[in-house]
């Protein structure tokens, strides 16, 4: 209240000055001495009346010829045209039905009738698939006829070959390539083998499919009815993908850090004592983690830094409990952390974990407990580490050898960095399931594209609702530009997805998301969102009251006088 008092008082002063001017308009003749109160005031001289009319007119001329146009120009609301219909259709998920056609090459040099097998497998896959947007497509490729069109990325390569005698069908995933080696038993039976191939593929891509369907379902209010629902469960042993375990997926999704084209990784060594005083983190990161970061480079970039904090105490609420070894004499034992302790393990009040970058930071912490609290164990974790959703990972390192106490070597850090690599993938949202890293990363690309598509569309939807809800909000042309850029990127991303070019889709999705955010958080608009219409009363009232009232009253008086004069002249005439 007192903050807003100032302008009102200012306006009062302005009105005082106006009143002065009004006073100056009072003709001398209209002043009358108190002693002659009963007498009517002496009539104005024509000259005075004329001057008074001119003075009032001069004020009104300025108000009308300059004031009103200025008011009109300065308070006009510019609303750049927005493609509202298109925005709405994106927000409703009607504009684009995202599709994820996964191409799988099949190499079967030794099989007698690969085409037939492929047909059967494809049929089984299509039947079992209850999420039509994400489907697998098989393509027979021979080494000679491999078409390098560079158009479509191949999700995986199936290599079919004969296994050792007597063994059942089996498959092997290479951890560093997209190849899946399938071995059929020598007693080749097309029916059983095709069922095995289909179930293998489903198993490999099940998690990704669930994630994407979860992502798309959370955005689109009306999921498209799946054409094959119900009819898929043939008796031929094809394992139908288990019903989407929504709770499990939601839990997984909740720990994923929001997508950003860049992330900052901070590796921190928190030690409860003064040692170790140095660690070979730079070498360790470049040797153990950098390959993963390079592989992730197509999705997001990373910057890395590290820090050491000595005498880092745990927050007071975390008290490890002493659990003696059951068979010991009492000396042996360990300190354990309860599950509740883990959530408050990070002492954010004292540990310097403030992000200084404009993009999200992921923290990885190695905590070395004090000697009198060692060894510190998390009983529920075999690796003595835990993951903090959307934030980072923590590992508790209990030094084993004496040398550890002053210097942490690269080798000593390896287990920690292996855990951090796993945690990083989990935080970024890569599926945990198939052992092959390239397949997981491809999966992550598709997942992130879906996420970006959904998030950019929903931002557009928010902007759409905002512009409709606040008809008086001004929309700068930059917003309109951003929106059209978002829309074209979204369309492009959608097309790329359909064609199976997921890298391009991610690129376009990234741009769409960025532009959509830019449009929605336009500086001049954000302020107006919190400016209700009623405030305009507060803005105009100080002006209209003290400044407008004298002006209006003077004009009114003058008009009344003119009317009276005209009447009198008519009567006289």
């Amino acid at each position, binding site marked *: 209240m007192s903050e807003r008092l100032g302008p009102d008082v200012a306006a009062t*002063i302005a009105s005082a000055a106006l009143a*002065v001017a009004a006073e100056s308009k009072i003709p001398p003749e209209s002043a009358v*001495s108190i002693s002659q109160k009963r007498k009517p005031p002496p009539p104005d001289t024509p000259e005075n009346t004329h001057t008074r009319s001119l003075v009032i007119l*001069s004020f009104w001329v300025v108000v009308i010829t300059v004031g009103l146009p200025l008011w009109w120009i300065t308070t006009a609301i510019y609303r750049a045209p927005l493609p509202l219909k298109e925005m709405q259709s994106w927000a409703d998920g009607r504009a684009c039905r995202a599709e994820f056609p996964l191409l799988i090459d099949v190499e079967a040099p030794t099989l007698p009738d690969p085409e037939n097998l492929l047909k059967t497998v494809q049929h089984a896959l299509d039947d079992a698939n209850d999420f039509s947007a994400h489907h697998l497509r098989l393509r027979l490729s021979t080494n000679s006829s491999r078409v390098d069109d560079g158009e479509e990325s191949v999700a995986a390569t199936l290599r079919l070959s004969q296994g050792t005698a007597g063994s059942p069908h089996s498959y092997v995933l290479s951890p560093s390539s997209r190849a899946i080696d399938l071995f059929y038993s020598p007693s080749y039976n097309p029916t059983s083998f095709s069922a095995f191939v289909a179930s293998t593929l489903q198993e490999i891509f099940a998690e990704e499919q669930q994630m994407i369907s979860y992502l798309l379902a959370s955005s689109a209010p009306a999921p498209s009815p799946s054409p094959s629902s119900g009819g898929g469960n043939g008796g031929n042993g094809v394992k139908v993908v288990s019903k989407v375990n929504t709770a499990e997926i939601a839990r997984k999704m909740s720990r994923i850090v929001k997508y950003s084209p860049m992330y900052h990784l901070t590796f921190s060594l928190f030690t409860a004592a003064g040692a170790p005083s140095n660690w070979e983190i730079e070498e360790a990161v470049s040797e153990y983690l950098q390959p993963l970061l390079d592989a992730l480079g197509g999705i997001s970039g990373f910057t890395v830094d590290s820090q050491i904090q000595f005498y880092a105490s745990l927050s007071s609420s975390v008290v490890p409990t002493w659990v003696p070894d059951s068979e010991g004499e009492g000396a042996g034992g360990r300190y354990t952390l309860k599950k509740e302790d883990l959530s408050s393990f990070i002492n954010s009040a004292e540990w310097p974990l403030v992000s200084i970058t404009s993009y999200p930071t992921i923290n990885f912490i190695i905590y070395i407990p004090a000697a009198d609290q060692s060894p510190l164990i998390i009983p529920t974790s075999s690796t003595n580490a835990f993951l903090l959703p959307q934030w980072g990972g923590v590992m508790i390192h209990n030094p084993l050898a004496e040398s550890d106490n002053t210097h942490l070597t690269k080798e000593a850090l390896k287990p920690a960095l292996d855990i951090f690599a796993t945690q990083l993938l989990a935080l970024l949202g890569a599926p945990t399931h198939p052992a092959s890293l390239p397949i997981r990363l491809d999966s992550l690309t598709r997942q992130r594209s879906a996420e970006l598509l959904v998030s950019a569309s929903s931002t557009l939807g928010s902007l759409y609702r905002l512009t409709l809800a606040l008809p008086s909000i001004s929309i700068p042309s930059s917003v309109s530009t951003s929106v059209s850029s978002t829309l074209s990127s979204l369309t492009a991303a959608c097309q790329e997805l359909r064609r199976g070019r997921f890298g391009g889709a991610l690129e376009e999705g990234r741009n769409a998301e960025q532009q959509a955010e830019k449009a929605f958080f336009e500086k001049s608009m954000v302020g107006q969102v919190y400016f209700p219409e009623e405030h305009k009363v507060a*803005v105009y009232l100080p002006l209209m009251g003290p400044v407008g009232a004298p002006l209006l009253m003077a004009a009114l008086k003058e008009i009344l006088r003119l009317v009276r004069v005209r009447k009198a002249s008519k009567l006289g005439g």
Partner: protein
Amino acid sequence: MDRRSFTVIIAAVVLRLVMFTAFPSLPDLLTNRVELSTPVTSFKRLQEGLFLYTHGLSPYDGGVFHQAPLLLAFFTTLPSNPIVVYLVYILSDVLSAYSLIQIATSGVSVSTPYHTSSRKSSAWPPWAVAAAFLFNPFSIATCIARPTIVFTNTAILTAVAKGVQGQGIAAVLALAMASYLSLYPVLLLPPMILLAYDNLPAVKKKKGRSLGSFAAVLASVFTVAAVGLGTLSWGITGGSWEFLASTYGVHLLLPDLTPNVGLWWYFFIEMFDSFREFFLCVFQLHLAIYLAGLCLRLRKQPLFVITTLLGISSIFKSYPSIGDTALYLSLLSLYRHIFPLMRYTFFVTSTLLYATLLGPAFYHLWIYAGSGNANFFYAITLVWSLAVTVLVSDAIFAVLRDEWETERPEMKGKEIVQI
């Protein structure tokens, strides 16, 4: 100039020299006072601009300096001795006082061709008017703080002095200089033309020059002079029009919200961004809206129109300072004869004193002690503005009453009511 006036001026010069030399820290102390130095007049900012200018950089880089380029050219020719700078400011005050003496000698404040006050005899003699300006604490403080408003004031007073002598061209040239230095004096052009026209020597008037052609000539002289000064500045700043936005743009758009004695800074800190342009227009228009009304109503006394407009702009302009009020008070001292007709002299005097004493205290509480906030200082500037507003309106009332009593001598001394 009689001997008394001469004595007054000598005494004032000595007083200022003593203030400058006996208290060496005083000039810098006063320079830092927001009441005396505004972003568009501050001596400190002038030095910043000078430094950039002499080092071959654009003086307007950095957004600190908002003053006219000719000031730079003028100050670079001065030797860098502070005494010289003091002397320049003292000389400027002396010229102002000399102009005031000329105005008072002409007697235009008591008798114009259309109106002669019945209280003519009680007007102050020229030396007293000069003394009222030279020994006014506001004027002295302004001189010692060395804001460039001092030069604007001198230019305005010179213009008025030329105006009362009927030298229209000279008056308008001086006014162009004042407008060039701080923009708002441009509002004085219409009453200045009236003043010069009314006081044209009888010989010239007989030639039958109409007010219209006279005004057209003076207005075009003013325009040519203003354009000439602008072009000169363009040359000085190395062929760049940047100075327009950095000087007049600052007067008009108020980008610098440093506190001052005016009403704008707090208002525009609080104003919603989307209404900022609108209220800038309202405030600027508010300054100009009185011009026509006053000229019409007080057609008989254009000098008083100038005085009143200076009073109004000392309250409502974008960066007012005590120096503006000092100018208004010095011109008002020409109207000593209407003081008995004013109704609120006690109120105004005490309120002005109250604001003068409490203003620095509240500013200290806000900025240095930290125990107050911006509202403290703003409240005191409101009181200050209220006092000057009441003074302006009371003076208008008194002048109108004086005109009325001249028309109707039988009403002299009787109470009146406004209907």
